């Protein structure tokens, strides 16, 4: 177990005028750890995710990332070129709506290969083989490599988005409601896939979800958010089986039993 956290989030707050997006959030994330941020609509979880992943500028606070060269960099002091490069190589971002994270008018193979081309890969055959390999890993038929995502189902698009993000071997993946909008059986398949990949690749992940079952299945740690604050956090099974805060108890008891 390594002693250096991969990500250090300190006192992140985001205000919209006097409205609180999120407030005073601090935590550390280690390599191989999956953190779930759970809460209902308006809890601030997506705002927090966007602040941490530098898609939004927070009002206060800092986010430090342990780069591959072993130094810590304050992400908001990086210049845009470095940040964009980081987002393309060492990080992944899986959007809730796969169309936001894919190029819909370009083939599946090109979608997966784009990041490779962006970092300088210039061998068509290798790029294509890597794309085929990844399509198979996310359980998309290799013979769909030249089809556009417009012709894919929602679950397939989501799996394609995951492949597109993982092809450069990122160490940290952000996911915003990755199973939102998918049918239950499709969700199960996707979750199993994500679980497997996270394990196999030793990824760290921060997953925003309102679905506690997703949190239980995928995450080691969990943060519960309400009205912009983190009201409870800890080991996932502890928070779900022995919730201490009133809101957490309410959330856990609200799950419908099938």
């Amino acid at each position, binding site marked *: 177990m390594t002693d250096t956290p991969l990500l250090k989030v300190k006192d992140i707050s985001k205000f919209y005028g006097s409205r609180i997006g999120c407030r005073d959030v601090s935590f550390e994330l280690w390599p191989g750890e999956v953190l779930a941020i759970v809460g209902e609509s308006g809890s601030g979880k997506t705002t927090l995710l966007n602040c941490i992943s530098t898609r939004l500028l927070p009002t206060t606070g800092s986010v430090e990332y342990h780069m591959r060269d072993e130094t810590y960099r304050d992400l908001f002091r990086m210049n*845009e*070129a470095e940040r*964009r490069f980081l987002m393309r190589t060492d990080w992944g971002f899986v959007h809730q709506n796969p169309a936001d994270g894919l*190029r819909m008018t*370009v*083939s599946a*193979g*090109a979608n997966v*290969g*784009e*990041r490779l*081309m*962006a*970092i300088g890969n*210039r*061998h*068509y*055959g290798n*790029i*294509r083989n890597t794309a085929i390999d990844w399509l198979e890993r996310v359980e998309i038929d290799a013979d769909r*490599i*030249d089809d556009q995502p417009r012709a894919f189902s929602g679950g397939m698009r989501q799996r394609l988005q995951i492949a597109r993000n993982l092809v450069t071997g990122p160490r940290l993946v952000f996911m915003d409601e990755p199973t939102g909008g998918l049918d239950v059986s499709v969700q199960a398949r996707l979750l199993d896939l994500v679980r497997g990949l996270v394990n196999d690749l030793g990824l760290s992940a921060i997953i925003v979800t309102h679905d506690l079952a997703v949190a239980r299945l995928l995450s080691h740690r969990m943060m519960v958010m309400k009205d912009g604050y983190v009201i409870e956090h800890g080991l996932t099974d502890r928070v779900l089986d022995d919730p201490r805060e009133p809101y957490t108890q309410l959330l856990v008891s609200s799950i419908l039993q099938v």
Partner: protein
Amino acid sequence: MTELATYNFAYLDEQTKRMIRRAILKAIAIPGYQVPFASREMPMPYGWGTGGVQLTAAIIGPQDVLKVIDQGADDTTNAVSIRAFFQKVANVAVTTRTEEATIIQTRHRIPETKLNANQVLVYQVPTPEPLRYLEPRETETRKMHALEEYGLMHVKLYEDIARNGRIATTYAYPVKVAGRYVMDPSPTPKFDNPKMHLSDALQLFGAGREKRIYAVPPYTEVVSLDFEDHPFEVQRFDKPCTLCGAEQVYLDEVILDDKGGRMFVCSDTDFCEDRRAHGHVGPMLAPNGPAADGLPGSKEAAE
């Protein structure tokens, strides 16, 4: 014929010329970078070469000799009109001979004759942004150029190969200039791309409607984008020019009759005439050929 109006030399006012020259200097200083400029209303509509005309107007002087070609030919309507325009507003000497020109304004072709250090090639450009059809947002493409993020360009070439088995782009083939900026060479055939590389002449590109100027200074590296296992290749013609017999030049197809008869002739009309003047003949004009005289372009027709 009385002139009702007199024009400032080369039509544009001096302040405009200054503004364009400044843009040109910037463009030369940053090869391949699209410099925005305040494109003026010209007496021809957008899409008819206003970018090229403004560049030429900004740099032309009384001692210059101007050649204008359109798809390689000096005698198409557009080439003739623009040439006439500059004769009228600048009273400069004009020519169809590539070697005699100091400024060559071109639409969509580079002359076959090698250019020298005393010449400037002015290109007419419709869409200056090579990434435009992949990424419609100007805000994004500017960032991509600024941050040298050109993965998307290779995505397009990848798609070509995936769909067609090879890179199917045959004109406006994207190039990397001086190892930094990716540039659209204007809709010249990819056949002409190698001519841009380490040219002795200055190459200027003007897009009037899009209001951009860019440049390739002399002796600059211009490399066509490709993949290691699908390297850049120029078009090959398996026949020589029917009129002058030239090989390894870009040919146009001319339909002769409605029985499917056709011939392939040099796209660069001046080059072809020059060769024929020096006695080269192609299969059609050869002593035993189907029509040794009376053809367009032959010495008789030229008189």
